[in-house]
């Protein structure tokens, strides 16, 4: 099975995603160049983290118009899995693959640190290797990760079990919806209505090796792998 990892100008986690797939999962991966219209037969597309087009204007706003995105959107419409991580989540929202938007962190600062996430729904193609309620430690590294959507959208996401990951923590006395970035309802990751597009701000590809602090992110890749291979 093959992962296609899009390299936009300014992507900088494409390499990490590639290594996670190839070294840890032992699967095939190929970089997809933003100027091309070719997914190279990828079964799963990863929109990686970074600062596509420098995050100028709004994160993801310019990247969503890259030639490759036409194919990514078509792939998603066909039900193909798409994994948007960090900047990839922002791009997926801008491209309309996912509802809502990611705004400047409430603290107005870039935040890089390992965070705790709770798996809210383990019955999806991206989370089947986890248990519902399981807590994961996965790093975040972003300045614009405050998930925002209107009430109706939030209600739908919750009602349909499409909130896959939520931030937990904040210490004693913290808000029920505590998050490191001010996300509504502490949302860290969601899926599309068809369930095949995942957007998440934390970086599972950075959490695939205990040596670097955590291997909790592997489950995301293994889940999608088991689904596609099934």
């Amino acid at each position, binding site marked *: 099975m093959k992962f296609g990892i899009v390299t936009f100008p300014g992507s900088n*986690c494409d390499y990490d995603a590639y290594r996670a797939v190839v070294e840890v999962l032992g699967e095939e991966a190929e970089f997809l160049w933003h100027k091309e219209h070719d997914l190279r037969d990828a079964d799963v597309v990863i929109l990686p983290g970074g600062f596509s087009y420098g995050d100028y204007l709004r994160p993801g706003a310019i990247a969503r118009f890259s030639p490759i995105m036409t194919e990514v959107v078509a792939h998603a419409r066909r039900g193909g899995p798409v994994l948007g991580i960090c900047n990839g989540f922002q791009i997926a929202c801008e491209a309309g693959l996912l509802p809502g938007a990611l705004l400047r962190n409430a603290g107005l600062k*870039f935040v890089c640190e390992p965070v705790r996430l709770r798996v809210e729904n383990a019955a999806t193609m991206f989370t089947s290797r986890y248990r519902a309620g399981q807590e994961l430690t996965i790093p975040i590294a972003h300045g614009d990760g405050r998930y925002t959507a209107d009430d109706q959208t939030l209600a739908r996401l919750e009602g349909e079990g499409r909130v896959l990951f939520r931030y937990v923590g904040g210490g004693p006395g913290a808000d029920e919806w505590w998050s490191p970035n001010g996300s509504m309802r502490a949302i860290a990751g969601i899926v599309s209505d068809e369930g095949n597009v995942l957007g998440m701000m934390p970086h599972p590809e950075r959490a695939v090796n205990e040596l670097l*602090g955590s291997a909790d992110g592997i489950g995301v890749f293994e889940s999608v792998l088991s689904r596609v291979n099934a």
Partner: protein
Amino acid sequence: MTASRPVQPRPGDPAITPALIAEHGITDEEYRRLVEMLGRAPTFTELGVVSALWSEHCSYKHSRPLLRTLPTNAAYVLQGPGENAGVIAIGDGLAVAFKIESHNHPSAVEPYQGAATGVGGILRDVFTMGARPIAMLNSLRFGSLDSARVRYLFGGVVKGIGDYGNCVGVPTVAGEVVFDPAYEGNPLVNAMCVGLLRESELMRAVAQGVGNPIIAVGARTGRDGIHGASFASEDLSEANEAKRPRVQVGDPFTEKLLLEASLELIHSGHIVAIQDMGAAGLTSSSAEMAARGDVGVTIDVEKVPVREPNMTPYEILLSESQERMLVVAIKGHEDAVRAILEKWDLTASVIGEVIAEPVYRVTEGDRVVAEFPGTRLVTDCPTYTPPAAEHPDIVALRARDVSAIAERPEERDPAWTLLQLLSSPTLANKAWVYRQYDSSVRTNTVVGPGGDAAVLRVRGTDRAIAVKTDGNGRYTYLDPRAGARIAVAEAARNVACAGGRPMAVTNNLNFGNPRKPDVYFQLREAVAGMAEACAALGTPVTGGNVSLYNETPRGAIYPTPVIGMVGVVDRLAHVTRSAFAHAGDAIVLLGEPTASIGASEYLQRVHGTVAGAPPACDLAAERALIDALLDAIGAGDVRSAHDCADGGLAVALAECAIMDRDHPLGARVDLSPWRGLPLRGLLFGEAQGRVLLSTPHAERVLAAAGRHGVPARAIGTVTGGPSLEVAGTARPFTVPLDRLADAYFESIPRIMARTASAASDSPATTAV
């Protein structure tokens, strides 16, 4: 020496007058030299070129004779000083390129852009060697955080460093931040970059091959930053306010493209040399590459892509627009070079060529606007060895008997003093800073910021590299030679605590105006101390940067040599962290406390006193300590190791207990062996040559220490309880860990919250 051909002044150029010459920072003597070199008067363009190349920043005229005294050799040094970055071999055909650079003056004027462009510049220095940047570090100095202006500078600098490095996708993994009124008005911003390369892919910035095209790559040239190099060579004063347009704006997005394109270019075999257009832009990059290759070059400024209309040759040559590179390609490969750049949406323009004739020539179309004979432009710049004399005030300060300073009543409770120190912004935890840095991108960061040195794995091997910056301006102020020695020793200890063998050093000398005898004395002595320490510890200097004229109307900063140390961890299993890890482990102190409190953070924080002699630094003992520690780590006996220096033993103990904030582990120690020492020397004195470690095998660690002649003692146990207990002294005390943690972790956030929004999140530094 043949004089260069006559060059007609360009219509519209100002006349060369003594005032104009002075404005360019060129002394009478230097002007005479220039005229002698040319065999005629210079044109305006030539004056500009020389003023940049002979500026302190580019020519090192006050430091070069001193720098020659530094040890630079070791079998594994592939590239010493003189290139864009130093390079050392780390085995398996791999090498590490690294360099530090200052952006002090630009950051004082515009903290965000000043710091950001500093990061950009040092990144380019490393990737032009053919290395992929794998880590950024920084070393920062600010005035007291009590000042709103300082909070603004601090916030802006940190955001500038973060935004730039984060966007390029290089993790910022370590550094240091010190706050002291001595840096009020003249902050220090030193940035270091570390890159990884194959030895076979090492690229040097040496122009060669007559007929080879010279290509400008990357961003267009604008009017920004003209004369930044000479700007960095002057005192900061009110008059500088008028120089604000010299500020440069960074574009990390273009830098990222440039990084990828440059590495692709270097690996493509289509080019022979590449160099950043940094300080003094096109002028210095082209002149330096020509000088290294001992070849001539000719450049046509009309071919340089510009951002604004009507730019003069003077402006084009001296612009410091960011994210530009100069490439010497192989003749006939121009299209291949262009294709690689276009792939990354960058442009490449042939602007000149390497010529046989030994001249440095600049044309504007057909008209020659500047021409210098041979490579003398770079090599003939003057050097100075001004008079040196230590200031008597400093002699007196150092000689002061600080042990006579009476204790404050509160000090009767050592816990009070400890909390004071832990909450001192200089010692307090810097997560407020490094949370804003992406420290985990590229997935190599085994140990990120927060401990002693940072550790990055080297993929495909079982090895890692450990890196850290260190410096102590207060020590260097009170005793320049000792201060510099200690900076090297501390950086080496930090690296060793992480499990790394210290290998090589890059350094940044931040000093005042060298024409003042007391400042030149500091510079000379500090370089001597650094040389001694690097020789003794076997860590040659592979490069660095000198930043002089760090003064404000109120005087010079503390002389601040900053050391960037790179070490190699032989096996990943040896990577060691600072925080206590296991309840039940024994706590061992390597090295010995002393009575000394001279020059300590304690004196400054608790008594507002900067005086006394810095602690002695016995270099042979430092080396033995490192060897003993690495032996014990190599034997698998060490569970945590932490340098015991700033703030003394009590602070180091507290840090070990609380540093892993989610898993604090209490400890109990008995310091009765040193009952005879004055208590504050024992607890808060900053004796060098010490490491605090935890181990399940105390006897084996003590034996290893014994083999190396390092004094060592088991002083207590990691209890895992909720407090730190210090017994065996005249005033035993117990402090709950949560109080220690609150002082240590919340101090800077609390201060910044005071006016954080005004200072650091102002729209002025926050792009919308």
